[in-house]
């Protein structure tokens, strides 16, 4: 799976995560989660959470942690 074949929620979440990669991991994940909460339509977030729950293949670690934060509602 490359960026051409990645599902959009994976590609877009990774694009966001890399922008915050310079921050400490937990802070970066919180920033990504806040961004997703503010700008993503719920079905996209649901697709991301499902992908993360399914192992999160090709999902950036910061994005994966952001998905965990969203799932936990924090």
């Amino acid at each position, binding site marked *: 799976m490359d*960026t*051409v074949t990645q599902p*959009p929620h994976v590609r*877009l979440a990774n*694009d*966001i995560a*890399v*922008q915050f*990669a*310079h921050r400490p991991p937990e802070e970066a994940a919180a920033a990504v989660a806040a*961004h997703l909460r*503010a*700008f*993503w*339509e*719920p*079905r*996209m977030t649901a697709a991301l959470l499902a992908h993360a729950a399914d192992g999160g293949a090709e999902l950036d670690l910061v994005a994966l942690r952001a998905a965990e934060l969203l799932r936990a509602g924090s």
Partner: protein
Amino acid sequence: MVPHKDGGANEGHSCVKGRFAFGYASHPDRVLAPMVRDSFADEWREVSWEEAISFTARRLREIQERHGAGSIGAITSSRTTNEEVYAVQKMVRAVFGNNNVDTCARVCHSPTGYGLKQTFGTSAGTQDFKSVAKADVILVIGANPTDGHPVFASRMKRRLRQGAKLIVIDPRRIDLVRSPHIEAAHHLQLAPGTNVAVVNAMAHVVVTEGLVDREFVQERCEDFAEWEAFIAGPEHSPEAVQEITGVPAEEVRAAARLYATGGNGAIYYGLGVTEHSQGSTMVMGMANLAMATGNIGRDGVGVNPLRGQNNVQGACDMGSFPHELPGYRHVSEDGARAVYEQLWGVPIQDEPGLRIPNMFDAAIDGSFRALFVQGEDIAQSDPNTQHVHAALAALDLLVVQDLFVNETAKFAHVLLPGTSFLEKDGTFTNAERRINRVRPVMAPRTGKQEWQIVCEIAQAMGYPMHYDSAAQIMDEIALTTPTFAGVSFAHLDAVGSVQWPCNEAAPDGTPIMHTDGFVRGRGRFVETVYVPTRERSTRKFPLILTTGRILSQYNVGAQTRRTANVAWHPEDLLELHPHDAEVRGITDGDMVALSSRVGRTTLRAVLSERMPVGVCYTTFHHPVTGANVITTDNSDWATNCPEYKVTAVQVALTPEQAAVREERLTRPVATAGE
């Protein structure tokens, strides 16, 4: 057409489009009666307004009943009036019951909205156009005003001829770099996709050479210390990034010193800033630079987007974004939602809706089934045409409201004929936040204003949406949107035009923003890390394509191609550096194949030393070229604004050159309207 000399924005000036290219309003291609069909493979059937509206409303409700409230949505247009846009977003929020509304600013200036809101607190340029007359140093980034914004360019050139200094940051050697009586002090001819590295390097110089306006920063801004430590890092120095950007370090240092110390420094920018994978980051980078040097909050300075269409600002102001209600209030703000819930009598969803690219993805995955498109040709203007066409073809219902059977309408089930600006009654808001009246010079040729049609669809869907006039819609906008509280047609008729915010605190409007404090309180410095785009040149696609506009044509050309202006630009051309042409055996005027990892098209090559080696350029005014067959679905990380400005491509003489030439000779050229 000659503009009124008292017009606040243009003061009697217009470009070749405004002056000559309005004949499309009477072009024989105009659709004047509604049309429907069950499948886009069928022939169109002319029907009455009643039948078209009832067909649309019934199908929308059927789709929602079957696939859920979120299965439908709409796209508003930056060519229509504020009142027409407001009506569409109201239909989506109050009648569709979701926030699936977006606008064509998604594909141009949505990063401006994000970046300026994060840093200054509101999504708009800071100055009026007149302000450029007080600028001492003008920094033009990713914009070509000579072609794209010619009336403003005239103002700018007047100031440059008076002695203001000019810095141009652009991969192309645009006309402003050197033209009669004008010469840029510095042209930072950067590699496409490296804007953020360059603006960071300029900020690095400002910080490390003691050029920060510390008094301004201390009084007006926050988060400066963290940003200062970040930007002072050696990785941001001009020397460290010159290999990435291609701009000599000394040139960056000289430009930064000039901007910081040359008097009033004013930034003007275009889609060469926003249409990148880091478009939003770059907008914040420019805001950082302006705040650090104190170039905000007075005449002659500021950060100013040069916008692409007549009402991009207004369409954004009117709540067209899926996360924002009118006046840029997030849908999660209880107080803002309550205003509309009380007035409209329905609950408003508190989570964002789908953006345009998300709508396409959801159409393909089957969860998004119907789309209302107001005055936009997404099948031609949006990137990765194959993906867009697949999405449109997957919809159960596509409703297009437009003057013509455009490329998008080829996939539509309903065509609702629209009105040209000569028939509209309402307001437009330009890039300086100036709200201007547009008055009809002839009755709507279709018999209805576009907002009336939207209201009738809403009513047919069971919601009592009715206005007696466009003025009444503006009254509702003023009632519900704090920045528009003092706006009415009567006020505009009395004063001519007004720049928002226009309310009790600023009854005469606000030509220059952030004069005493920023809209968000204190201006916020944001760390802008440079992250290279994933789009790279490769052995297979060794050149970088960047796209843009030309003076005589307007966007996808649906209007201007149907005027005599087409004589000045009958086809899209590929500008190519002579070196890149020579190694491929291409000579000036050859038909060439242009290909990327997503698609391929053919067009005529023009050799030009305006392009750096390794970079080529084309426009997207003609559907027969279909430049967006080439562009990819890469987008700005924060807003999904497409990365039109960086696509890895190959250019080659095409084996079917003879056929292409023959096709071109027989290609129909639209005749001008009367």
